């Protein structure tokens, strides 16, 4: 046991390190894009607590569906940053052999079934994945991450209603980050909280501070226990904010600077770091060590991705059919 491992509560350390890893990963992706070395991607900067908190509550049996802003979910689930970054660069070593690119990465071995970049596509598949769970047995549940924008697509209504009527074990996680590409959420709905929509379907729901990883972890654990036990859906809203533009590069000049600033002050990583330091749950030295580890992993990932080969031209037409 090193001092580090003794002084920091393991889950807390894990949560912080996972969030740091996501942030570093996203900044690396964005940098590659800015340098003309990568196609566009959507980062999850500012939303790390939501990804990490929910993943903290899941285990191996569970399956995950997510959307275009999925790198955080994948990393929090334990995916290899090398293979994610390789996929973003369209390399053969990526999780999908380079065919997906950043927007639809799936990782079967981690239970990540079919990320969708069609907004709402993840919601359309979720009940079916849960139906497999229901019919093929086991205690696994399905978690589907979707945005506040996806909630305004009709398929949200159809998906959660079906899950309710058929008693499907789906945890709906709405990451309400206040933006839908270039449109503020308030332009798209009168309600402030998507969790309030659960009532129509007879689905229990809750909103949690999506910038507080411990709060998300606690809420997600309750929600997962409910879904796993009752085999019914639950709607968890993580209330958060997209701190970068919609996609890279996006100067996001349409964002109200005051609103952005107020959320920057609630950055889920900076506030958590500070809290852990204040509570002496972590020392500055430990934090530095953690950051170095993360930096090393991301640098290694970048190198791996950059050096990996592109797929061969035959791959253009393989995997069209099973």
């Amino acid at each position, binding site marked *: 046991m090193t001092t580090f491992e003794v002084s920091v509560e393991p889950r807390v350390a894990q949560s912080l390190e996972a969030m740091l890893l996501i942030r570093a990963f996203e900044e690396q992706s964005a940098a590659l894009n800015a340098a003309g070395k990568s196609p566009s991607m959507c980062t999850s900067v500012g939303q790390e607590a939501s990804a990490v908190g929910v993943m903290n509550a899941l285990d191996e049996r569970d399956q995950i569906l997510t959307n275009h802003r999925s790198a955080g979910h994948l990393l929090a689930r334990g995916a290899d940053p090398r293979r994610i970054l390789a996929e973003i660069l369209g390399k053969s070593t990526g999780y999908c052999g380079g065919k997906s690119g950043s927007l639809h990465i799936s*990782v079967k071995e981690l239970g990540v079934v079919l990320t969708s970049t069609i907004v709402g*596509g993840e919601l359309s598949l979720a009940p079916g*994945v849960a139906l497999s769970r229901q019919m093929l047995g086991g205690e696994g549940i399905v978690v589907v991450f979707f945005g506040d924008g996806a909630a305004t697509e009709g398929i949200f209504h*159809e998906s959660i209603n079906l899950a309710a009527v058929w008693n499907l074990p789906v945890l709906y996680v709405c990451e309400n980050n206040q933006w839908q590409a270039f449109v503020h959420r308030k332009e798209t709905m009168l309600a402030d909280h998507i969790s309030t929509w659960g009532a129509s379907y007879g689905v229990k729901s809750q909103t949690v501070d999506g910038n507080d990883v411990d709060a998300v972890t606690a809420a997600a654990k309750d929600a997962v226990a409910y879904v796993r036990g009752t085999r019914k859906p639950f709607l968890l809203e993580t209330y958060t904010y997209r701190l970068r533009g919609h996609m890279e590069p996006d100067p996001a000049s349409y964002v109200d600077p005051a609103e952005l600033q107020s959320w920057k002050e609630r950055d889920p990583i900076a506030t958590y770091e500070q809290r852990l330091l204040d509570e002496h749950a972590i020392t500055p030295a430990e934090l530095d060590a953690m950051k170095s580890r993360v930096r090393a992993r991301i640098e290694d990932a970048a190198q791996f991705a950059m050096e990996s080969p592109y797929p061969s031209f035959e791959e253009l037409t393989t995997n069209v059919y099973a």
Partner: protein
Amino acid sequence: MSTHEENAMTTMTTMTPEAAMAEALAEEMRRDATVITFGEGVATKGYALAQEFGAQRVRNTPLAEGIIAGTAAGAAATGLRPVIDLLFAPFLTFAMEEIVNSAGKLSYISGGQFSFPMVTIARTGSGWAVGAQHNQNNEAWFVHSPGLKVVMPSNAADFKGLLKSAIRDDNPVMFFADIGLLHTPGEVPSGDHVVPIGKASVVREGVDVTLVTYGKTVHSCVAAASTLEENGISAEVIDLRSLKPLDEATVLASVRKTGRAVLVHEAAAPCGVGAELAAIIAEKAFSSLRAPVVRLTGPDAPSPASFPLEAAFAPGADAIVEAVVKQVAN
């Protein structure tokens, strides 16, 4: 009449295509516990099926085509083999996202990690006089979409055999059922009658002209061929059965023999299956062609409800005879 291997001992049962589909589904559900079926009213209308296999495997759904198809795709990716019934082809418009972007593409996008063994049934074509929001032959949309297979049988035996193949296929299969045929009884070989996807059927042999068709117009072509025979013209009739993959070899072999092709379907001409056939023929059997290729299709118009107009929608035997006579005279 189909090209599958038939045991000399095979006995035949007479049944409607509708009954043949029900039988195919029941047999496959018995064979494979992962086969399930759901859709609007599926459990109510498929009462016998629901009785035999229970409420878990035969389900009514809410009225929401998008999530029916999406749920099928999600279930297919994770171990089940769903057969969904989306009722009428125009209702597929509410499920295009799930069928095309998910079921059709995600095997490729995932680099082969996932596959989508699912069957989507939709009724199509004239014959019910209920108008354009219940009747549109849009099968070509799916032929034009990657990763899907598309079948459209013309007789009871093929309804059964193709549905069984579709259920066993590891890919998403669109199964179009021509309404005009559903209640016409036909002979179906007993037992495990399977018709392979991708094999056309030469339903009548001939040497002067090749009629390529599918669905209800198969019968118009056969009728036309009889009339043509009386006029000394020998027409070969090919029932495609599968629109994707399309049995190029059978079509090309026939056209190379006859030198003439008439392509017949109820769907509109522009970018339809007839266009695809004409292109394949003009590319690969050009030197055999003795006359211009001819398409006979439904009009490029919504389908009218009015009975006599609807009856005139799909090309009939007379029009086919006329077109062939003119083509042969050419």
